[in-house]
């Protein structure tokens, strides 16, 4: 009885233990599963955080939309196995779309995702992107766009190797960029798989869009403040400032530039209006545009332009410089305009003054000269030798004075554009030969070796022979003047493809480099030793420059102090051909 009871009891207990063991096992299993799930979750979360960390690091230092978009798209690719990704950023007038297909096969969805973005934007904000100026940029798949600073995914994500069906887009997600309550863009993530977005990934997708929103918002604020800073600076400048982008559209046109170019205060100025204005002043010619595009050539290009204006014409001084971005790519043109009408007027008055004074002086001077000649020819009566000496000195100085006056008249003629050229067909070699031989005596007197080197054949060129000779005389007499005994002066004439270059080389005292640009200014003389001797008017080079430029030629100098100088001038051939043709006719 007792045994039975005990047996029964132990059986129940056994059963109970079994039950408990089973329960324990079950609980253990549950716990295991739970902790495994937890581990997975922690892993997942760590991965998400690492991506966010990278992303926030990378975008904090980026001030470039395109780059920013690229970084965001790269980050997104680590999270979502997308097939094509696109972003849209827009403002009042324009929209920028960046498309990044993950595979080559998906490039053909570019238009579809763009439309998708535009439609979602229209529905969400009422903003019709198609009415804006859209510029699209497609990043080719496989191109090395991985921005620096974003390492590869810390946890390698399994990309199933299954054959993808790239026939159509089956799932997508548009994430708007919002700052405050303003939408300024959207990013689209699309895939050909039915379920591109696992539930748990959506949250981080959204977090990334937030990060991107913040970054872009920050970028916009920076650009806005910088722009407003620049705007107020440009607005308050006394100079007119115009900036054009690489497409030639107007980016900046400050009030001064408007005023100078004769646009109304609030008039909407299109790039065409501007070009019409500038073309009338011969700025923005094709050749120069080409120069700008390449970013090569001498800058700034300086031009003076005369614009018709309500109160008479206006003279503007215009400097054009290409604006270069990274890698020296030309991003646009900046022009600075200065109204020099007043300066021009004053200069005009000065020229007129000089011209009239010179004429006034010329007449009495001629009479004095004549009178001295009469006395020296002993017509009024005999003179003695010491008197003749004094008169000779007077005559010499009167000669100088009339030279100065002639030079002044030439300068004022050139500057008031009154100088006229008498163009003829001239053999340059002959001209040089003759001019040099006129100086032979003077050179011998000074003990200087003067020679020339011209090509054998005829070098025909159409120019004003007297004026060209004047230039040559100026250059040779300067060279002789500043070259010491035992020195050498050489005139060389070279025929180039479309111009003839004449150079006058000496072994004289030379000019220091910083003075070269000012050589051709009026009344400048450098290295002139004090005391008697080589005196000049300081106008010779200015006149030469005026004459050469009137011929559409160039004049320049190379020099080294105490080593000698080399003065060049060139006359174009093209005009000569034209004249030849005219002569033939």
């Amino acid at each position, binding site marked *: 009885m007792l045994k039975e009871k005990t047996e029964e009891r132990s059986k129940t207990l056994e059963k109970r233990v079994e039950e408990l063991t089973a329960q324990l096992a079950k609980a253990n299993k549950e716990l295991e599963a739970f902790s495994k799930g937890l581990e997975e979750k922690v892993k997942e979360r760590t991965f998400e955080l690492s991506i966010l960390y990278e992303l926030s690091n990378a975008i904090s230092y980026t001030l470039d939309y395109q780059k920013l978009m690229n970084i965001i798209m790269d980050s997104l690719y680590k999270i979502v196995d997308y097939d094509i990704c696109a972003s849209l950023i827009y403002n009042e007038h324009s929209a920028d779309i960046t498309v990044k297909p993950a595979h080559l096969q998906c490039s053909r969805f570019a238009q579809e995702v763009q439309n998708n973005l535009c439609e979602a934007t229209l529905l969400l904000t009422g903003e019709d992107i198609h009415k804006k100026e859209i510029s699209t940029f497609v990043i080719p798949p496989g191109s090395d766009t991985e921005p620096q600073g974003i390492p590869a995914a810390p946890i390698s994500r399994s990309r199933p190797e299954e054959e993808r069906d790239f026939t159509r887009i089956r*799932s997508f997600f548009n994430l708007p960029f*919002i700052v405050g309550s303003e939408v300024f863009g959207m990013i689209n993530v699309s895939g050909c798989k039915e379920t591109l977005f696992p539930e748990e990934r*959506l949250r981080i997708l*959204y977090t990334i869009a937030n990060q991107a929103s913040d970054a872009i918002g920050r970028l916009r604020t920076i650009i806005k403040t910088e722009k407003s800073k620049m705007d107020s600076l440009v607005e308050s400048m006394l100079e007119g400032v115009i900036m054009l982008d690489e497409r030639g559209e107007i980016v900046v046109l400050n009030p001064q530039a408007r005023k100078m170019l004769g646009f109304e205060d609030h008039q909407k100025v299109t790039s065409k209006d501007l070009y019409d204005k500038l073309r009338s002043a011969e700025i923005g010619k094709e050749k120069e545009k080409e120069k700008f595009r390449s970013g090569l050539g001498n800058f700034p290009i300086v031009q003076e332009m005369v614009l018709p204006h309500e109160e008479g014409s206006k003279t503007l001084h215009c400097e054009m410089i290409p604006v270069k971005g990274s890698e020296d790519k030309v991003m646009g043109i900046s022009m600075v305009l200065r109204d020099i009408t007043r300066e021009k007027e004053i200069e005009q008055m000065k020229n007129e003054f000089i011209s009239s004074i010179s004429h006034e002086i010329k007449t009495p001077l001629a009479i004095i000269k004549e009178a001295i000649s009469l006395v020296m020819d002993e017509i009024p009566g005999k003179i003695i030798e010491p008197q003749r000496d004094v008169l000779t000195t007077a005559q010499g100085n009167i000669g100088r004075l009339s030279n100065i006056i002639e030079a002044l008249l030439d300068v004022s003629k050139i500057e008031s554009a009154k100088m006229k050229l008498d163009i003829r067909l001239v053999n340059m070699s002959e001209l040089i030969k003759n001019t040099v031989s006129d100086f032979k005596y003077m050179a011998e007197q000074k003990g200087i070796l003067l020679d020339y080197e011209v090509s054998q054949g005829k070098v025909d060129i159409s120019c004003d022979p007297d004026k060209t000779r004047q230039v040559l005389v100026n250059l040779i007499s300067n060279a002789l003047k500043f070259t010491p005994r035992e020195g050498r002066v050489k005139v060389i004439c070279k025929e180039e493809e479309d111009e003839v270059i004449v150079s006058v080389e000496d072994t004289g005292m030379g000019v220091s480099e910083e003075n070269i640009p000012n050589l051709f200014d009026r009344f400048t003389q450098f290295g002139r030793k004090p005391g008697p001797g080589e005196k000049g008017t300081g106008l010779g080079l200015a006149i030469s420059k005026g004459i050469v430029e009137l011929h559409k030629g160039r004049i320049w100098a190379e020099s080294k102090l105490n080593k000698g100088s080399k003065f060049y001038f060139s006359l174009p051939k093209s005009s000569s051909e034209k004249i030849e043709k005219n002569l033939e006719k």
Partner: protein
Amino acid sequence: MRESERNPQICPSNKAADQDGFSSKIRLLLIEPDREQAQVFGKWLEEEGFSVVSVFNLEEAKGKIHTDSFFTTILDIDFPEGIKQGLKVCSKLKEDRKTKDIPLILMTYRTNLATIIESLDAGADNFILKPFETDYFLERTKHIVAEIEARKKTKRVIDLALLRFIFTLKETDDKENLLRLLCKAFNRTIRAKCMQIMRLDCVTLMVHRAKRNAAEKYGFINNLDMNEQGIVIKDPSGAAGTSSAETIIEGFEEFLNNFLKILKSLTGNIILGLDEI
């Protein structure tokens, strides 16, 4: 207005396996204080192929739920002690960690929108309105169960059942509460789903956009406002104004359709069931 016909993705299936796989029948817990009625409802449901366990109060219900698993709970809140007691049962079930995830269908009287609002706050998921015919009761139960089933399969389905139910309340005179109810249902279902995958500022924008388009035709929609908790109605009595309950529902329907359209344009097929309501 057969609800089940309007949503092709959701088809009722009585064979859906119970989670443990022990039974092919869907197990329902019926909390019905009136024993006679419990017997009748239980019989109806069993005939439709459900497996039903009837209990009469909260304690019994908790006991059953702790040892057994159920697909859905149907609760009649008309307790002899009053509706308050019924609502208490409702909120107690939703507070309990073990029971809160089981969908709760409430039975209550059609006329009283305030009660519906209260029970929504207490955590009810959907409603069967009394008094009812057998067919209505079974149709609704089956439909709601089917919706729940669909949602269990994928979390991506948006729950429009509650809103669809409210859109049937066209005869009510309590227009203020109707508006409140609409907002509440919107926040409980659509907004909640949106907030899982979107930021508040985006949802707010969507609400404003959807509102603007609907307000052109239905002025009262302008009174909708969005705050952290979701949409609310400013000055409900003023908003209801002279509009009939039918107009209010129409206007809200318009708003909702606009909203769903925007949501669809943003999320594609992430959220399913976004077709017009």
